[in-house]
């Protein structure tokens, strides 16, 4: 037995293996505690925000109705599809976009659904809160304020759900030939794609919202993005109608991933599933650290206006 320097006999120190086991156990405990805490905060935030959204259910219904742009576009594209068909040039590729009328109907219905559940308005809510001083109490609680906006968006999506179902039901009543049931795999992939699309949209808007710390009217920047979003997301037309160069350029932006990809996925159209999901992960991996860095820099400039 080796004597210890003080001559007080051997001391039993935990060996590296037990240290690893101990610290791993502690880590797991901490993780478990954090997860439980996070779950409780999420439940409380979601239930209060859902209660709040139910107070505004009429407004939510109107918002859902105001998102019918894809149906208007369907009417236009449908006419374009009918015209060549009437002149004898119709067929499966009637409008020259690689989609027949039924596929076109399904695409625009799915674009409507994708838009309904991926829409973000954090820039407007955040800007108002920052300008009115309502952000101050949020900043003084041990919870990153952006989580409150995430909860508000998710609660609003839940409130929209019945209205979206009703609108879809009416759509199928009017166009019974367009009715279909996606395969379970496509449905799950579509739902995941919509959530990821929402995440990208939310992060993109959050980056702009955080610019409120520098410019009081950050929402003006968001309006600048609206036009490219409108055309490149596939909301007004399937990307297939764009010239190849435009289409290639669009795929360098996150916009096609926000509507066109989830819509094609749900509608059963041709789509590069792995490449699109990889691109979504890439955009999230890019936007998340930018949001964090902008937040850290911006919050130093916060002057608690209106408070």
């Amino acid at each position, binding site marked *: 037995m080796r004597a210890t320097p003080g001559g007080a006999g051997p001391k039993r120190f935990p060996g590296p293996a037990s240290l690893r086991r101990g610290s791993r156990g502690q880590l797991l405990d901490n993780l478990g505690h954090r997860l439980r805490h996070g779950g409780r905060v999420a439940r*409380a935030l979601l239930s209060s925000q859902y*209660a709040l959204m139910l*107070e505004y259910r009429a407004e939510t219904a109107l918002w859902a109705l105001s998102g019918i742009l894809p149906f208007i576009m369907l009417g236009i594209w449908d006419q374009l599809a009918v015209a060549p068909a009437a002149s004898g040039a119709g067929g499966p590729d009637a409008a020259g976009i690689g989609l027949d009328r039924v596929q076109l109907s399904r695409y625009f219905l799915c674009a409507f659904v994708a838009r309904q559940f991926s829409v973000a308005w954090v820039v407007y809510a955040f800007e108002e809160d920052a300008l009115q001083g309502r952000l101050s*109490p949020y900043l*003084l609680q*041990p919870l990153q304020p952006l989580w409150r906006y995430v909860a508000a968006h998710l609660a609003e999506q839940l409130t929209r759900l019945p209205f979206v179902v009703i609108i879809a039901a009416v759509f199928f009543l009017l166009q019974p030939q367009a009715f279909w049931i996606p395969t379970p795999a496509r449905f799950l992939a579509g739902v995941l794609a919509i959530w990821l699309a929402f995440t990208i949209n939310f992060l993109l808007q959050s980056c702009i919202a955080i610019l409120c710390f520098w410019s009081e009217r950050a929402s003006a920047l968001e309006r600048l993005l609206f036009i490219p979003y409108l055309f490149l997301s596939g909301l007004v037309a399937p990307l297939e109608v764009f010239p190849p160069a435009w289409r290639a350029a669009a795929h360098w932006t996150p916009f096609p991933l926000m509507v066109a990809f989830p819509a094609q996925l749900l509608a059963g159209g041709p789509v590069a599933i792995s490449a699109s999901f990889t691109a979504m992960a890439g955009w999230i991996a890019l936007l998340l650290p930018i949001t964090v860095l902008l937040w850290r820099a911006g919050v130093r400039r916060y002057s608690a206006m209106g408070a």
Partner: protein
Amino acid sequence: MAIIRAERLSKTYRVADKQPGLAGTLRHFVQRRHRDVAAVKGVSFSIEAGEMVGFLGPNGAGKTTTLKMLSGLIHPSGGSAEVAGHIPQRRQADFLRQITLVMGQKQQLIWDLPPLDSLRVNAAVYGLDDATARHRINELAEMLELGEELTRPVRKLSLGQRMKAELLAALLHQPAVLFLDEPTLGLDINAQARVRSFLADYNRRQGATVLLTSHYLADITALCPRVLLIHEGGLFHDGSLRELSSRLAPCRLVRLELEQPRPAADFARYGELEACDGRDVRLLVERERLTDVVARLLADLEVRDLEVSDPPIEELIGRLFRQGEVA
């Protein structure tokens, strides 16, 4: 040991300078001009745990800015602050669990929902289990005399009820340090008194440290043995209200009720005449001459009643702010 410490704390805001009118608007559009405004200029003080300290000063003196820096809401431009062993602007979770900032006209409660919904969120955010949260809500609601108001939408509550619910939300996590900015603003006399008594009670029960700003001096006199007087961004006084009174007014107020009315000119030799209304006269007399002057007044005039007091502190501070007498 000091729980709040400010060392040469300062804050300078950059503000846009715009002239009125169309020309000013166009100039502002083409070329923005900014200037720096020093809201707080090197303020230093420390506060012991459990103290209740009043923060006095006119509008724009820098009180709220100082509170915002101490609570970590904004970053100081210079100097340093330490609150509960933390640097406030880092806003670490452990720090945020120990403090609260209540701003009179700003609210954290969700406007369209009953306060209980916001309280549930706060309880979850601060990691309180259901039983603890329920116990604290009941205890605070009893102290604040809140009952069924907690289940009514916030928008349906009166200003006083709302303020009390705000206080409940701000104190649910039992903070050790309370920064209160005008907590009684806009409340009627009764509601002000209830909030005051609640704060005194809370301080006694929890041993919490309170830094309070208020335009109502009654809040300060009722709650705070110590006051900090801030003026134009600098600290003018740190001590008791009585010391402040002596410092601001080296005079005492002598009220006289005379048997017969006398002309105002008769009183110039006794001191500074504050008011002369028939038989009622008010004089400001230097403290060291007080005994002599009172003896002369009683000898020279037919006095029915005489009363000596300190001039009201509101008047002294008001005069100080109006005249810019701070050196």
